[in-house]
């Protein structure tokens, strides 16, 4: 159980790293990633209040933002779409995000709406920039905003967010593809989707039609968060990903080994990973 008094008190550190590779086949890397941290701190310089510790909880309030995006479109168009989307998202959040000292229901909902608005802003920016391209380029976008211990996830497309806890890897997002849609509607079976191209055809994408999915999870120290594009998951299974996330000492090494594994598996697509390791202070 997470007690409110523990909220925002970082009893450890968040080690985050991102990496993107063009792969072995493609000529252009159409993936982008983005890591950012926002820090708010009230540092008491002088007071004659009796309780100087009343402000301790405001000393360290950090928001971490992890984003991956995988562009799709004609040659080079996907790269433009994912780059534009990530830049627009980062700019919007940088300008508007700030109220994360304490959440009541209204405050938390407002914060979530703000994140969703940032995704909508990215979507509209991509549409506006490339509307003259006819059926313009589009992009997936998976974002985690982490305000310890809560990770808010907004997801469009088939890039993924996972978390690893006590050796068990769980996928936090569901792929938004035509294949998944067909299975859900009972129109096709999984085997039929696997044999078709629908498994990789997006049913929701920034710049096209979007239906953002919103979720959250409360993290624990020693959990590992992973965001990745399908260049990783088409070559490395859940067991392989879990093994790498578990054995690596830091986020940078984890990213390097995940990318290496994807390349060894064939590297048919661009591969992008963002890893966040929640390092407990108790582990030194």
């Amino acid at each position, binding site marked *: *159980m997470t007690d409110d008094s523990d909220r925002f008190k970082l009893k450890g550190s968040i080690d985050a790293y991102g990496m993107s590779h063009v792969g072995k086949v493609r000529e252009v890397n159409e993936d982008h990633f983005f890591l950012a941290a926002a820090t708010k701190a009230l540092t008491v310089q002088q007071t004659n209040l009796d309780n100087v510790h009343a402000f301790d909880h405001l000393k360290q309030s950090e928001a971490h933002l992890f984003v991956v995006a995988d562009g799709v479109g004609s040659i080079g168009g996907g790269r433009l779409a994912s780059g534009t989307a990530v830049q627009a998202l980062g700019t919007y959040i940088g300008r508007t995000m700030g109220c994360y000292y304490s959440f009541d*229901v209204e405050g938390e909902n407002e914060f979530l709406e703000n994140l969703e608005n940032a995704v909508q802003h990215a979507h509209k920016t991509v549409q506006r920039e490339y509307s003259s391209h006819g059926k313009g380029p589009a992009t997936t976008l998976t974002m985690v905003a982490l305000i310890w211990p809560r990770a808010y*996830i907004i997801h469009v497309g088939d890039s993924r967010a996972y978390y690893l806890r006590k050796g068990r890897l769980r*996928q*936090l997002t569901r792929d938004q593809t035509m294949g998944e849609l067909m299975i*859900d509607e009972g129109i096709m079976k999984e085997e039929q989707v696997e044999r078709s191209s629908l498994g990789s055809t997006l049913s929701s994408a920034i710049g096209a039609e979007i239906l953002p999915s*919103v*979720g*959250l999870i409360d993290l624990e120290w020693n959990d590992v968060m992973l965001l990745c594009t399908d260049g990783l998951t088409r070559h490395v299974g859940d067991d392989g990903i879990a093994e790498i996330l578990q054995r690596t000492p830091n986020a940078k090494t984890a990213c390097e080994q995940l990318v290496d594994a994807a390349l060894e598996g064939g590297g048919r697509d661009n591969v992008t990973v963002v890893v966040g390791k929640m390092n407990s202070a108790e582990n030194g």
Partner: protein
Amino acid sequence: MIQKKICMVGMFATGKTSLVQKFVYSKFSEKYHSTVGVKIDRKQVEVEGTTVNLLLWDLAGKDEFQDVPASYLRGSGGLFYVVDGTRRETLEQLYALHEMAHETVGDVPTTVALNKKDLTDQWLLRTDDYDTLSDHGLHALGTSAKTGEGVEEAFLWLAAATIKS
């Protein structure tokens, strides 16, 4: 506009996500997807002349690996419990979940969806189960996320109860 956070609570695979999907998107999928963490959807409803924006927090069901974290329940304006009418244990374990939730959020309006009502030949709940729910002060309603039976009624009943509380 009034906003109310409603938490969907129950054992795993009782149909919490399916009920939300039916209510919000009028969709039903036979394929089971285990919810990880919390999935959030919104739906605006009109109850007794008042517009209410329901924030539906679909919580991962309790199973052998995970409890329902109390932190997710904080700030709830209502609790929507879901029982699988074809698995008696999901009703038996509901009372412990209710006790935990009550300790966390206090007296908030609750409803219990006795779900999968379309599976009549596998239905295991008896009349005295309904009496026991009533004895615990829990409002219950039969639902089927597949056919839609009782789904709208259950959510609207809870929405109305939250604005009265």
